[in-house]
């Protein structure tokens, strides 16, 4: 093998070695994260505390369908009780050819009440997205970049929007540098392709996992948000990290969760879903909500502590 390739593979080994934690088999629960069982909580039985960080997660949404609009209506109703200020998107934001009219019909109109109320969306890119346009689209707050990080306005939280479809050497180096430099207690990566997923259509992206997961473990990441599979899923902790797939905020692949993976703590593949979350201190509370307003999953995740 030519030397460049050999050195590249050595670099790959360095990444894994520096992570210093061995990869465990899927389904292996790390010791530090506690996920409460899903409960039939009444809408907004989260702590909903003043001063906490409240945010929304959506993915695979921008198809302009009636169902996307109906789910958006639920978001507005939820926000009246739970005033989240920011939203992160896990990609496949706008399907089809992007034009002023499609951006309007598939993003600006359905979420107009949220945008008018000042909710800021921070996008990551999926495989169906027009990358050149969306990275520059002001309402996606990407600053012209394919990947970026930002500090949340409340609590000790930093988000990392990763371009999982094209993880160059430069991007992996940037991510390692950002995670190392981040002093925030909560480091929350989000991106399109799930490291763990029980979706039959796509499933877990194991190649990507082998690079990213050791970095997440090393830097005490507790939760990861992704999409791509058009389902909702919360995994059991994988090496201490809970993975959410929020890929049905517009699209839906009904009945696509494979129960044989052993990954699923909670799954829902019968309707569209979005997720709201609240970080207060060392706890992240979450509700996953369907188009009919049903809370299909809820719980609390306690932040991993450095070992």
């Amino acid at each position, binding site marked *: 093998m*030519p030397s460049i390739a050999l*050195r590249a593979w050595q670099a790959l080994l360095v990444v894994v070695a520096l992570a210093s934690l061995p990869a465990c088999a899927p389904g292996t629960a790390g010791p530090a994260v506690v996920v409460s069982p899903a409960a039939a909580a009444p809408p907004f039985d989260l702590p909903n505390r003043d001063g906490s960080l409240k945010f929304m997660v959506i993915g695979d949404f921008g198809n302009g369908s009636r169902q996307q609009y109906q789910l958006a209506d639920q978001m507005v109703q939820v926000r009246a009780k739970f005033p989240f200020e920011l939203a992160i998107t896990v990609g496949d934001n706008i399907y089809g050819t992007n034009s002023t009219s499609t951006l309007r019909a598939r993003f600006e109109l359905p979420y107009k009440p949220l945008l008018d109320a000042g909710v800021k969306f921070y996008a990551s890119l999926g495989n169906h997205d027009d*990358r050149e*346009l969306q990275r520059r689209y002001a309402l996606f707050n990407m600053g012209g970049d394919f990947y970026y990080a930002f*500090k949340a306005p409340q609590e000790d939280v930093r988000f990392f929007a990763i371009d999982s*479809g094209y993880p160059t*050497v430069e991007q992996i180096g940037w991510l*390692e540098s950002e995670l*190392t430099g981040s002093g925030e207690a909560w480091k929350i990566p989000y991106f399109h392709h799930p490291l763990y997923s029980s979706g039959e259509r796509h499933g877990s992206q*194991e190649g990507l996992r082998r690079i990213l997961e050791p970095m997440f473990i090393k830097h005490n990441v507790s939760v990861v948000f992704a999409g791509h599979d058009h389902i909702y899923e919360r995994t059991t902790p994988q090496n201490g990290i809970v993975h959410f797939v929020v890929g049905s905020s517009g699209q839906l692949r009904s009945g696509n969760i494979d129960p044989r993976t052993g990954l699923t703590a909670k799954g829902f593949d019968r309707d569209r879903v979005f997720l709201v979350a609240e970080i207060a201190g060392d706890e992240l509370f979450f509700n996953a909500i369907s188009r009919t307003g049903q809370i299909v999953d809820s719980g609390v995740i306690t932040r991993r502590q450095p070992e």
Partner: protein
Amino acid sequence: MDTMHRRLAPSILALALVAAAGRGAGAQDPPAANPDAAALADFQERVQAYAALHDKLERTLAPIPPNPTPEQVSDHQRALERLLLRARAGAKHGDIFTDSIRAYFRRQIARVIQGSDGAAVRQALLDEDTRGVRFAVNARYPANVPRSTVPPQILLVLPRLPEEVEYRFVGERLVLLDVHANTVVDFIDRALS
């Protein structure tokens, strides 16, 4: 809100990664030690020439304004595409991916696919069913065809590219894509074979 867009100084790991992966073909061992050095240098020269042409032509266009409309981005893409088409009217398959570099790319990809991460990498490359999609040199990347994931294991072993172009897979073909113009610069058939 403090937004950080890729501005932090590289960490030691990043430097190690970059150093290890080299700066494209230019960082290869001396030619005597590397039988692919000549092909890699030639490839890098061709890519750099393309990037220079791209930059020269793009500079003749009005820059995309901050917070552009979709039409402004699309108009810019189309205008750049037209300029590139005119400048590369005679471009053909194999102009950049010459015979010798195609063999190198296929070997590099094969080594990844036959390695310990091979099954996962192949699964990611073929995650979207894009078999049968038709395209040609200088053509626009087909509308509504999703972009393939390019796994990091693949990106690590292929020559690094200037920011004007990127690698994508369409079925089993490796495409060199002009990022700004959204056009096919060249491609390798049966890249996964």
